[in-house]
């Protein structure tokens, strides 16, 4: 038996379920003309952003599958990736071999961090998100300890271009000229004057296929069941804790690779803050794509990247043309990124309550009949 709803209720429900994407469509609809950018420019920019960010965002999908919410702990993976990059740029390994080597280096670090993160999150069931968020901060401290004090003193770094003049610690920015765009430039075609890095897209496509395939595996199935109800899963003999940890490990490792992809496109590494925002922006983008804390798919990823980064590109210019201050636009997009996360988290919680409410209404309706 299902509850009968009126048309208006249905519409409201639809709006309620897609608030964030709709919101963003509106923002972009206003922002694009205001910014006065040419379509061509915007498209090419967006293409670049897709190539740059989507891998990172896809790495968020698997913990959501396992019901652990948005993995703000992906920053851990980002750190691992950066460490890999620091090493290869110290050794002077360039091009695609350089990237691959960086990935190989990052993998064990990611796995270790992922395991640790997963264990912690198992200790904080029901509070995964805020915990993973704090884990991000905590690890940032450790990361600084290693990179700012360890590297050059304990961990050998020879290149003077990397090490601070004081003799240890990595500089604020590391120039990744060696691997800059090395993947993007392997094979690029121009569509209507829009350069498209085919290989990068191929890699991303591969990852998407992996995720789809993964959902079909036993492990994927286990994660789905754990995500729905840990107790039932445990009763059925599924190793709940282990499954959750695995999901985090996978996510962390992919985040590491994603970070390497991201940085090879950007070309310079901000040693001490690249990783910190990446988590936040990826999460925001995913949510903009219409994902929730409990449900997300590939479609959300790409829709998210497009909408979110459109907003990102246009807002400074729009701000400039609107009030005459580009800075305003920059603040605006920061506000929006955080605002989006806030809104979707709130909506998620409210929706959870509303669905419970539905159950109540249903029973009340029964009583109505009974009376």
């Amino acid at each position, binding site marked *: 038996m299902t509850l009968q709803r009126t048309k208006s209720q249905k519409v409201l429900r639809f709006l309620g379920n897609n608030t964030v994407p709709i919101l963003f469509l509106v923002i972009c609809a206003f922002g694009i003309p205001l910014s006065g950018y040419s379509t061509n420019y915007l498209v090419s920019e967006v293409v670049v952003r897709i190539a740059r960010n989507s891998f990172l965002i896809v790495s968020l999908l698997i913990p959501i599958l396992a019901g652990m919410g948005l993995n703000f702990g992906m920053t851990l993976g980002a750190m691992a990736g950066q460490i890999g990059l620091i090493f290869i740029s110290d050794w002077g390994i360039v091009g695609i071999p350089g990237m691959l080597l960086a990935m190989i280096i990052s993998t064990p670090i990611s796995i270790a961090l992922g395991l640790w993160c997963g264990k*912690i999150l198992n*200790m*904080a069931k*029901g*509070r995964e*998100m*805020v*915990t993973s*968020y*704090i*884990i991000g*901060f*905590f690890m*940032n*401290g*450790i990361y*600084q*300890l290693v990179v*700012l*004090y360890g590297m050059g003193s304990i961990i050998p770094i020879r290149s003077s271009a990397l090490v601070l003049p004081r003799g240890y610690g990595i500089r604020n920015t590391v120039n990744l000229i060696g691997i800059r765009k090395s993947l993007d430039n392997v094979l690029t075609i121009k569509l209507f004057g829009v350069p498209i890095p085919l290989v990068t897209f191929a890699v991303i496509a591969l990852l998407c296929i992996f995720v789809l395939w993964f959902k079909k595996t036993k492990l994927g199935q286990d994660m789905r069941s754990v995500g729905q109800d840990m107790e039932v899963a445990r009763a059925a003999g599924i190793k709940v804790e282990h499954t959750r940890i695995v999901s985090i490990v996978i996510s962390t490792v992919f985040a590491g690779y994603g970070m390497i992809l991201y940085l090879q496109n950007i070309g310079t590494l901000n040693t001490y803050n690249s990783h910190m925002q990446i988590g936040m922006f990826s999460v925001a983008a995913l949510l903009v794509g219409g994902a929730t804390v409990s449900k997300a798919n590939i479609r959300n990823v790409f829709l998210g990247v497009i909408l979110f980064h459109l907003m990102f590109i246009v807002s400074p210019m729009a701000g400039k043309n609107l*009030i005459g*201050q580009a*800075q*305003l636009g920059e*603040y*605006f997009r*920061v*506000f929006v*990124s*955080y*605002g989006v*996360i*806030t809104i979707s*988290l*709130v909506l*998620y*919680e*409210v929706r959870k*309550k509303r669905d419970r409410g539905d159950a109540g209404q249903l029973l009340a309706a029964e009583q109505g009949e009974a009376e």
Partner: protein
Amino acid sequence: MNTQNMISSVKSTLKSFGLPRIIIGLFLLLLFILAPFVGVNIGTSLSDTLNRFGMNAVMVLAMVPMIHSGCGLNFGLPLGIIAGLLGGTLSMQFNFTGPSSFMMAILFATPFAVILGWGYGQLLNKVKGGEMMIATYVGFSSVAFMCIMWLLLPYSNPTMVWGYSGSGLRTTISTEGYYLHVLNDFFSIRLTEHLTIPTGMFLFFAVLALIIWAFLHTKTGTAMTAVGSNPVFARASGINVDKIRTLSVVMSTWLGAIGILVYQQSFGFIQLYMGPFYMALPAVSAILIGGASVNKATITNVIVGTFLFQGILTMTPSVMNSMIHTDMSEVIRIVVSNGMILYALTRRTEATR
């Protein structure tokens, strides 16, 4: 037998005190012991510690009401801070000077704190269970939103706005000539040339702490604790849970507002824009270090915690610097504070329910 009892009792007391707290306490003690040997003046560092204690204590106190009513750790502190910033800037805008400016700042801040807190409380009532994460992001987005506002709001006091454009507030504004040190210098006692006690600041904190302590002993205060301890029980006793929660949030927000004003009057600057962004984390970890949990906190926790935390923040740079000539204080701050929060989050808090 007796010794066993002894040991067990000692164990239990240690347990109740909490391992991380002990470690941090000992660490701080060690720093104080080391200080003279590495040529750090105890007096200076002690008065620094006391000063920082006074600066931050109120913001830590702002955690208490929300923890009591079961809203969890107030990661949304920046909201309160924004109210404080508005109050401070307004009182400067209207050219109040000296102590009166501080009074006015509090006066101006209050309505904002109440309104913001009320809305924030309503929101948190809608998202019971997910408070902390949402609080965090409410804080962040409000700060980001205010960044826009600071640019747009029609402030005109030349000491506050950008010189060249003549509009939009500066990133840091000096409280010089307004409420700089109004509390610090109030009856401040100078023991040695290094060691001064900011009496006024302590008194101010003491008053607020007393008010909270008293409140928790009133009818409503009792209700608040009960709501935090077991909302269903409270409801079954005819308490309007949502109302109590909202009240607690308003209180926390207001205390946050006052807290930042106290901070500024001692620090000497108003930090706008991204300034308040991460201010919640030190406060949160301070109260946790003091022995609070996600759903229990006392005034003692506030005092102990703030002292330990600020003590470490002041001591580590000076001592470390003079020992190994590298300033790792920043890293230590990050690790200690967030480590503490992690520790608290991973405790089984709803065990008895």
